[in-house]
């Protein structure tokens, strides 16, 4: 009987202490070597992607990636290069979402991180750039 009371008290203490610690952490960890490297790689690629966003050739998908929206906006000779650019960007993005989730000790957060980014890429996009709306249609900002 004593043991039972003690057990409840101890568990109650733990139950209240843990969420406190979780709430105290107001920022997500994004300063790891892996995340920094991905950031740099994406930053460099952006100089090549930005003109493609402006021309409407490439747009932002609702799942946090980029995709070829209008192949005709790209000269035939450059299409392969643009496809490679898109593939590399999406690879970095997937790694970024995964690494942020991992760096914060919650690999299972990856889809939530991706969803957050998907929404932020779109709302931070420049006027004239294209994105996919909730029903998958391309919309010009």
């Amino acid at each position: 009987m004593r043991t039972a009371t003690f057990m409840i008290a101890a568990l109650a203490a733990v139950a209240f202490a843990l969420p406190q610690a979780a709430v105290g952490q107001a920022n997500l960890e994004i300063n790891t070597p892996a995340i920094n490297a991905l950031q740099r790689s994406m930053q460099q690629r952006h100089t090549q992607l930005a003109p493609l966003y402006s021309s409407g050739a490439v747009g932002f998908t609702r799942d946090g990636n980029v995709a070829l929206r209008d192949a005709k906006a790209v000269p035939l000779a450059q299409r392969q290069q643009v496809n490679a650019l898109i593939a590399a960007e999406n690879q970095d993005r997937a790694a970024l979402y995964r690494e942020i989730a991992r760096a914060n000790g919650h690999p299972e957060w990856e889809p939530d991180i991706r969803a957050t980014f998907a929404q932020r890429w779109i709302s931070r996009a420049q006027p004239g750039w294209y994105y996919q709306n909730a029903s998958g249609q391309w919309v010009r900002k």
Partner: protein
Amino acid sequence: MTAETILNRAALLAAGLMLASCVTINIYFPAAAAEKAADRIIDEVWQLKDGTSPQVKQPEAAPGEAK
């Protein structure tokens, strides 16, 4: 079954429930913090630090036929 056994079982059940709720709370996704983190990374990747976002960069070193 004595009264003590019943109490012990109840205590065990309560302990289990508390642990479960504790795990649930801990697993909650910090949406606001994630949004802030995303914005910081987007600032970096798109080089938006100087506020005026809708500024199309001048192609200083014309990317041209960079292969």
